[in-house]
């Protein structure tokens, strides 16, 4: 049959969703069922740090029922993902196991960056206008129950993305005492937000010209419908929004929820959401609010369709990842010329060795990222740059990179100078498996070699040619007029690991030109 039935389960902070998709090359993606169950998992997590038995039981019942509904549509494959409410709960490992045993559903926990990446994927797929919008300075803002994700796009590329841990549910829970005592609830929320916003503005918004604020989420769609009635418009001007906001504050949350047609169960998060929107609109200076649907489930479906080669990607997210890495590198003043040359050299070697290292496209990207970020730690401490680079990478979110991939990159960079830790030592403080360790070592070897070829950081070598000779030697032909004494002297040390890993001895041959 020409279609694949796929289901995405999204266990969020205040809602559990099941979406069933029909995927086909001809008709694309069609949602055939969307089941929503309201339950505030985040309430437990954000208040006590763990999810209580009652909620876990409820979740199990819902997931069991989802199994039944999936059968109703002949679902062949599914992905079930949990986000911050489960991620941040201290008992989530036990919880996932219980869910699997009770319901047969394998629930994965997404890291924040994976979650956002899937969200953006859904936007890119859902909206034809996505490419057009991100040409101009655009802030994509995703207000969730646990946190707010702020991403800046400019000239087609992702500039930065930050996660502010002040989602609607978290705000509501944190202010639950205050809410009863004050009539200035909205003002209190604003104050709490301001603190975080100030830091963000200083660091990231300074020189950016943000034209559009792209909002995702359900509420904004209701608001849009309310402002524009039946007109098919997906944009709200700043003035329209402010007028609406004032009306909202004057009328009050409950009455407004009725006017908007939002059911009672969903209305308590309306006010925090609006305050967040308003503050961000003011901070970014955006003139337009663009409304787009974003949905983790959709992202999972697109991702699946892409991996199964049912659909072609619509936006190159690898470029986003690279662009984000370049921005990080820039912030820490790395030597751009040095990394550019290294990038070229490293990738040339990587491509030449394809059959030997047996790694794929994704690992190539990881190598590229390692090159871009390999000396960012120098910004902090010149003599412990490897460890500092590791720490920076581990603390920096890159959208589109899974947590595991991020750790791989951080380790490659750490092992670039200094010793390569044995697996047993690494495993003490990491969840990486042997297979990932091997990837790290293989890529580290290439990184070191490439680094050695620009030891002087003067880009004496611009192009290289690589030949494998008699299965034991890798000849590196460089075309340069410069003196390579330094590079030659560093060569044995920098190639030691490479030889050990690949059983190939790199030999540097300079072909003097000029």
């Amino acid at each position, binding site marked *: *049959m020409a279609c694949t039935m796929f289901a995405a389960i999204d266990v969020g902070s205040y809602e559990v969703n099941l979406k069933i998709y029909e995927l086909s090359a001809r008709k694309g993606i069609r949602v055939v*069922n969307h089941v929503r169950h309201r339950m505030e998992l985040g309430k437990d997590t954000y208040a006590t740090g763990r999810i209580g038995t009652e909620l876990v039981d409820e979740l199990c019942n819902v997931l069991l029922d989802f199994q039944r509904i999936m059968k109703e549509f002949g679902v062949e494959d599914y992905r079930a993902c949990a986000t911050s409410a489960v991620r941040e709960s201290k008992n989530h490992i036990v919880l996932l196991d219980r869910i699997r045993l009770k319901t047969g559903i394998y629930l994965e926990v997404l890291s924040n960056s994976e979650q956002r990446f899937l969200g953006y994927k859904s936007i890119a797929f859902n909206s034809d206008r996505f490419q057009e919008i991100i040409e101009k300075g655009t802030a994509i803002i995703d207000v969730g129950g646990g946190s707010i994700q702020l991403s800046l796009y400019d000239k087609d590329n992702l500039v930065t993305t930050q996660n502010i841990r002040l989602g609607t549910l978290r705000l509501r829970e944190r202010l639950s005492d205050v809410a009863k005592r004050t009539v200035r609830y909205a003002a209190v929320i604003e104050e709490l937000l301001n603190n975080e916003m100030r830091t963000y503005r200083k660091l990231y918004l300074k020189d950016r010209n943000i034209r559009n604020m792209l909002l995702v989420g359900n509420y904004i769609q209701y608001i849009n419908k309310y402002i524009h009635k039946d007109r098919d418009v997906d944009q709200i001007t700043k003035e329209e929004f402010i007028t609406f906001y004032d009306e909202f504050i004057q009328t009050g949350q409950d009455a407004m929820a009725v006017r908007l047609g939002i059911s009672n169960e969903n209305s308590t998060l309306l006010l925090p959401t609006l305050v967040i929107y308003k503050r961000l609109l003011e901070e970014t200076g955006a003139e337009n609010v663009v409304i787009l649907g974003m949905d983790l489930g959709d992202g999972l479906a697109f991702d699946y369709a892409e991996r199964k080669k049912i659909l072609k990607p619509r936006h190159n997210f690898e470029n986003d990842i690279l662009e984000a890495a370049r921005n990080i590198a820039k912030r820490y003043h790395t030597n751009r010329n040095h990394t550019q040359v290294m990038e070229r050299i490293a990738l040339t070697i990587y491509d030449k060795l394809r059959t030997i290292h047996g790694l794929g496209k994704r690992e190539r990207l990881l190598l590229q990222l390692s090159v871009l970020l390999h000396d960012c730690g120098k910004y902090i401490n010149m003599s412990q740059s490897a460890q500092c680079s590791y720490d920076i990478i581990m603390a920096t979110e890159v959208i589109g990179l899974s947590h595991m991939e991020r750790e791989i990159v951080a380790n490659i960079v750490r092992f670039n100078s200094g010793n390569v830790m044995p697996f047993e030592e690494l495993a003490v403080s990491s969840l990486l498996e042997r297979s990932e360790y091997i990837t790290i070592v293989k890529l580290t070897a290439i990184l070191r070699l490439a680094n050695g070829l620009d030891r002087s950081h003067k880009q004496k070598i611009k192009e290289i040619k690589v030949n494998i000779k008699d299965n034991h030697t890798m000849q590196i032909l460089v075309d340069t007029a410069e003196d390579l004494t330094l590079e030659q002297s560093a060569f044995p040390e920098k190639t030691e690991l490479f030889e050990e890993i690949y059983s190939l001895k790199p030999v540097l041959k300079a072909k003097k030109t000029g």
Partner: protein
Amino acid sequence: MKKEFTKSEYFENRELSWLGFNERILGEARDKKNPLFERLKFLSITASNLDEFFMVRVASLKDMVNAEYCKKGISGMTPQQQLDAIHDRVHKFVGTQYSTWERSLLPGLRQCGLQVIESHEELNEEQARYVDQYFVENVYPVLTPMAVDSSRPFPLIVNKTLNLGALLKKKNEEDTELEFATVQVPAVLQRIIEIPPVKKDVRSVILLEDMIARNMSQLFLSYDVICVHPYRIMRNADLTIDEDEASDLLKEIQKQLKKRQWGEVIRLEIDEKADKRLLKILKREFEIKEDAIYRTSGPLDLTFLMKMYGLEGYEAYKEPVYIPQPVPDLAGKEDIFEAIRERDILLHHPYQTFDPVVDFVRKAAKDSQVLAIKQTLYRVSGNSPIIAALAQAAENGKQVSVLVELKARFDEEHNIVWAKMLERAGCHVIYGLVGLKTHSKITLVVRREEDGIRRYVHLGTGNYNDSTAKLYTDMGLLTCSELIGEDATAVFNMLSGYSEPASWNKLSLAPLWLRERFLSMIRRETDHARNGEAAHIVAKMNSLCDPELIAALYEASAAGVKIDLIIRGICSLKVGIPGISEHISVRSIVGTFLEHSRIYYFLNGGQEEVYLASADWMPRNLDRRVEILFPIEDEHLKKEVMHVLDIQLKDTIKAQMKQPDGTYEKVDRRGKAALSSQIYFMEYAKNQNRQPEDSAHDRVFIPAEPIEGPDDEE
């Protein structure tokens, strides 16, 4: 709501309006133009209707009075005032019921050769012997006579059963006190018993209670029987389950079922000739007031007339049996799914057969491409083929989900049995929703086809009950519209307890948005009228008593909207109020079939809209039930539905117009053709099948394609 349209004098009390409806049915029983046996049936219906009315409505008013709840209804009457008015009117009504029986139907039956022996003194010798022997052989063994004295308390008299009360005196003892005894007329035995005829060409029947009364002395051998009289009581049986407290709805209902027979007695029916001493005892024991005692001059519980209708023979005195016709769009089509893919299919029962609906489920159960079947079941016939098909589907590995409404009045016990049966077969059974009755009629079949998932949906105005589908007029739609399919899935998600979808495509649901939807459509017509455009609403339903909708209709009428209502039962709206309801007409059609479809038409400035629904315009439908309103959008089908409304508005035989004083009068036929809409639709359904397809009308001959020869010629 604007105040000027909500004054209490603008509304008729719903109970009294309902009694008016029952009076119209009684009118049919009295109408000599109807065949004699049909008249028996109408009389029987008035009796069973009245029973249910007492059990539900009177009981509920009684509860209010007991709870000292005296809030006035929309017409400004307190519960006690309503009860008083009801008793007044029902006493007169019962009088008419019995005079119809005694003076018109009984002599009529004798004329056509059926002698109904009303008192055993009329028996001749041969008959008497037969009756006594029949009693000894068949009746005596199942009787449980119960006497009351100081050592034996008054026994439990079961709700709605027929009983014989007697006064006894010990034999050979002078001056002893009279004793009371009672015996239940067994419901397991036939109430009408045929006995040897007095002469040729005449058949004779006697009623079971008379037979027992005649032989009462055999039950109390050491007593003299002073008098014997039948009586019957009605108890407060309204089942109010506190759903917030019941952790398990199912168990709670099972508990309630046992308790139900213990309710307060709210009506006593007894033979008008009954001995005063006997009546006094009953009055005391049942703690009943004078106005709740109904004295009859004929057999109690006239519902037995339905059985009499069923006596074989007498075909000349019955309407010929109508056979529901095949649906033309499905005629000759093996694959119902293919037929639905070609075009939406409209069903009009009972003029057209209910079989396609049963077939739809049955085929789905066997179809290899079907993944899932989902259905809401409200009142289902015993031995329902639909239930069997659903169980079969589950056994065939389909995902079957069924919402079984256990709160359907008086059917709980019955429903629990087959719900459990479905569960055993592997169906996913949902036992209703807390606080809401699921009244919507929807079936969803999910099928995986070559080009993806396709959903087939049946939506109806009537229950999935193949027996009532032969008696109730209802409409249904079979469609595979993607938009309706999506909505149908969302409906079942909600029925499983999940959140409502962000938006609906085509369906409107109660209790969510249906009231608003109706109001906005009425107001839209009002706006059209105010703008000087033509504005017209035609609405057909069973009952209208929602104050908010009535006020909206008044407002529309005041603005100049023409409103034609076809309402079989309760109508709290008053016609002909100057400046308020002058543009509103209300007619009620009571015929052989029970009018049951709900159809709503709005002119909408020329963009006509037609809807079918499971809901009436009653508060319970709009606020406390899950109901579905669905549009008919296929132009051809829209015309069909509008045609149905049009014909009903032209009915001059069975339609009765509501008058400003609340009474109903037959349509003034001067200058109009005689038309009975129900007869019209029967003929129409037959003709539809006779008519050849349009293409056959074309006077163009199409040469047949040459048959492809085998290749070996080359």
